[in-house]
């Protein structure tokens, strides 16, 4: 299995090399780099599934790295799950890519850059999951972060993209530094950078908490937890859409992987307080993520904010896992872990699907602003259908996949009665309430997205002329849409697979999960709760089919088409439709304390005509980032005082530094 995983990494690097040739002909990218990326994905899926089903982890050493620390590889069930997840999305992206990059072939942007860094990015993510020592982990982590920076800054002719890229790079490095320090703490007690040694070392509670806090900060920053999320809605949307899918769908999951690896595997005994913190941060991220998403009308930015929400839901699951594990309920901990991992996979699938759909719209209509879209479902029927499936899935509606993982999270949260401690019994139901609110708001948000962008009438000329996307792009979206349905209808199969992760990581299986057969998902026990997704789908199809058969019996002619009635007013034109801003206005009013809202009528710059202006901004900037920026700028200004511009003074500094260092060593 490890050989297959190594082959996947090599194929990704190969795809990166091949793309160098794309400066001469775009065909090298289309027929060389992308198929190799597809091979990477397929190998990763097979290797990952193999590791998930294998009882023991696979290990190996690479003759690379430091002389006393060769790179250690290890592929266990947890790694296998994430490997398969990366593989799945990379495969679909490789099918989608050739059609999508055609847009860039005649532009200023350089195709080799895109191909080279995509390959490196994928290779970096795979290596993170395979790494079994902190040194290799950090090298791969940085490879992933830095190569994705070049992808964010790909269309660098726009100043906003350069700014987003810089912010991304900065945050990625602060996060990386924090992770490195966390590993440093653990390595100090383990005496080695090896994960195996860290697993065996026992840390004093204080140091373990420090290591955990550093890791949580670092991985949380990469995953985009509130309030560390500010870079995410800037960086993800500006990358090319298939890269956005990889970043939102996969790279955030690699951060989740890192967090699970450190907190459940490496750091040792879990404290209940850690679980509580993770739970609170997760709940806040979920709620604020969806509220900010509701206020957006840039389609890709909105999807990026939804990543914050879904990462929050995943961390709610992980927080529950840690709470249950630390209070001695391993079975419930395993249920919560399965819920979190299930949502991780689901989010990867539906978020990639939605980003690919947004990419298809961007390519065909050259539009990201929803206020100028409309009626796309009739112009791009396949993309419209797949996007609808993505919307249903992300809104957590049965029988699609998002529902299953939220259901599992609720099931885990509802086992709170088993806990002894009063505060925990109070806190977890409140987190469940936040989750319920998040789910309902997400549904509202995606009614807005689909209703404004895909239904109704086109609001601008390019959108009116949009045509269906090329075949490869449709196949990629269709595959992901099918995955959404399958993951929603056959949850028992996946829960059975995920059981292996809990088995290896926590030593606990879910004996009751499929106690009544594959049809019934009963995570805790059959008496507690059961969900038969295939029966639900069957029921839906049966009632739908029967209903339409009975009602349409004997009627052969097509339905009568007419102008919209609209209460007898004149037929509405495109500008009379409800806009995205109008749709979310009631929700904005209800939660207005959470946003910075600037609303008013101001004269337009060119014509002087009065125009309604509305700006809704994130409070996180003013609260957390601006003060840091002020401190940095202020301290930089103070430090510049020592720079006189006189070379003799500089030589003096050098001499002084040298003397101090000598004094330190001797």
């Amino acid at each position, binding site marked *: 299995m490890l050989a297959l995983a190594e082959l996947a990494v090599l194929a990704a690097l190969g795809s990166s090399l091949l793309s160098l040739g794309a400066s001469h002909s775009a065909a090298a990218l289309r027929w060389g780099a992308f198929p190799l990326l597809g091979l990477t994905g397929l190998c990763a899926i097979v290797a990952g599934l193999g590791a998930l089903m294998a009882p023991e982890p696979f290990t190996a050493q690479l003759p690379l790295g430091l002389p006393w620390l060769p790179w250690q590889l290890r592929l266990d069930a947890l790694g296998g799950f994430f490997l398969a997840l990366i593989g799945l999305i990379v495969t679909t992206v490789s099918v989608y890519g050739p059609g999508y990059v055609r847009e860039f072939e005649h532009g200023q942007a350089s195709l080799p850059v895109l191909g080279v860094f995509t390959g490196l990015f994928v290779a970096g993510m795979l290596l993170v999951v395979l790494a079994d020592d902190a040194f290799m982990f950090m090298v791969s982590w940085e490879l992933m972060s830095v190569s994705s920076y070049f992808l964010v800054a790909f269309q660098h002719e726009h100043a906003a993209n350069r700014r987003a890229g810089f912010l991304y790079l900065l945050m990625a490095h602060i996060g990386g530094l924090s992770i490195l320090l966390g590993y440093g703490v653990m390595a100090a007690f383990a005496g080695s950078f090896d994960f195996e040694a860290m697993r065996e070392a026992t840390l004093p509670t204080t140091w373990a908490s420090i290591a955990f806090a550093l890791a949580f900060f670092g991985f949380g920053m990469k995953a985009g937890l509130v309030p560390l999320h500010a870079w995410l809605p800037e960086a993800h949307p500006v990358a090319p859409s298939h890269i956005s899918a990889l970043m939102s769908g996969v790279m955030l999951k690699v951060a989740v992987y890192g967090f699970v690896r450190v907190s459940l595997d490496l750091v040792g005994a879990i404290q209940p307080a850690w679980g509580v913190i993770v739970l609170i941060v997760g709940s806040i991220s979920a709620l604020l993520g969806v509220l900010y998403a509701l206020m957006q009308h840039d389609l890709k930015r909105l999807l990026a904010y939804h990543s914050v929400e879904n990462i929050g839901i995943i961390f709610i699951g992980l927080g529950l896992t840690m709470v249950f594990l630390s209070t001695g309920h391993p079975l419930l901990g395993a249920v919560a872990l399965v819920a979190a991992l299930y949502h991780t996979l689901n989010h990867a699938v539906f978020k990639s699907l939605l980003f690919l759909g947004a990419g298809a719209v961007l390519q065909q209509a050259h539009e990201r602003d929803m206020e100028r879209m409309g009626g796309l479902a009739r112009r791009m029927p396949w993309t419209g259908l797949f996007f609808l499936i993505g919307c249903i899935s992300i809104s957590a509606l049965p029988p699609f996949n998002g529902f299953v993982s939220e259901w599992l999270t609720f099931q885990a949260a509802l086992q709170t009665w088993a806990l002894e401690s009063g505060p925990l019994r*109070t806190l977890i139901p409140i987190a469940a309430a936040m989750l319920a609110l998040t789910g309902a708001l997400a549904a509202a948000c995606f009614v807005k997205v689909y209703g404004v962008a895909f239904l109704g009438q086109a609001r601008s000329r390019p959108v009116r002329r949009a045509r269906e996307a090329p075949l490869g792009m449709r196949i990629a979206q269709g595959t992901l849409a099918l995955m959404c349905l399958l993951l929603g209808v056959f949850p028992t199969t996946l829960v059975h697979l995920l059981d292996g992760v809990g088995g290896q990581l926590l030593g606990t299986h879910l004996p009751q999960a499929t106690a009544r057969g594959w049809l019934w998902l009963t995570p805790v026990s059959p008496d507690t709760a059961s969900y038969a997704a295939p029966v639900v789908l069957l029921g839906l199809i049966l009632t739908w089919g029967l209903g339409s058969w009975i009602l349409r019996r004997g009627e052969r002619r097509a339905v009568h088409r007419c102008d919209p009635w609209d209460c007898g007013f004149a037929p509405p034109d495109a500008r009379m439709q409800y806009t995205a801003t109008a749709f979310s206005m009631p929700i904005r009013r209800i939660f207005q304390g959470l946003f910075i809202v600037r609303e008013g009528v101001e004269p337009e710059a060119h014509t002087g005509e009065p125009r309604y202006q509305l700006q809704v901004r994130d409070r996180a900037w003013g609260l957390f980032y601006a003060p840091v920026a002020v401190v940095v700028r202020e301290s930089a200004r103070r430090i510049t005082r020592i720079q006189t511009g006189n070379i003799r003074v500089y030589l003096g500094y050098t001499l002084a530094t040298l003397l101090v260092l000598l004094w330190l060593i001797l």
Partner: protein
Amino acid sequence: MNLSGWLLALIQTTLFVAAAPLFAAWVKALKSRLQNRRGPSLLQPYRDLHKLFHKEVMVAHTASPVFRAAPYIVFSAAILAAMVVPLVAARLPTAAIADVIVLVGFLALGRFFLALAGMDVGTSFGGMGASREMTVSSLAEPATLMAIFTLTMTAHSTNLSTVIAHNLETGLILRPSFLFAFMGLTLVALAETGRIPVDNPATHLELTMIHEAMILEYSGRHLALMEWAAQIKLMLYAVLILNIFLPWGIAADFAPGSLLLGLFAITAKLVILGAALALAETGLAKMRLFRVPQFLNLAFLLALLGMLSQVILEVGA
């Protein structure tokens, strides 16, 4: 699985779906009486449905396939939800298909497509209705779940049949958590089924309409399905509240005697609840739209209080 159980479940679902217009008619007739009007006969909704099913369907030029699929999906979701809620008998095999969270999911699925259908034609009324419906429901849904969670945490199960059986066994203990959950769920039910004071079911063409605004463009069988689904939803919330909080009389086994008793009990309970609803709707005025969030926040707060009093006060219960 026993065959008679499934058969009974099928009959119960059919009964549920068939009786839903009757319950709506009962509320309407009683309300008319209270307002000194004669009111339509109890069979009027059936006549309306019959008429609509035989009328021609008109679809706007700008409508996408979603518009034509939505009535079927909304109706299917309502039927699936009706299948899960115990009406006459608890412990039916269908109860294991979906628990109470899935039930809320079915309602959300129906609502999602209802709102999309409202947006589809591109009229401003449709968008307005969809926006309001999703706002109201996004505040109401968590309150529903909280109220239900309070009950399920007591019964240690989210399966509706188990919850009802647990409540039957323990008998009537006036727990604070139950009281709060009951009040919260009642308020939510008023909002979710579009009754006064949140929405007025008796109105068309009012700028404050919510549900009606979304189905303005429907006609013929599509409209019939939408109306019927709304009636099922009303009955669903009524039965849910009645059978969870006042479960007496519901058949615990499948003997003909207890089934008859169950049928009689739920009929009597529905008649009384319908009367209470008619009375409340006559006495109350419709709220301004922007007061609705406060109303729903109250519901959410009550449900949360119920939950907290359950986890804090009723430890070990």
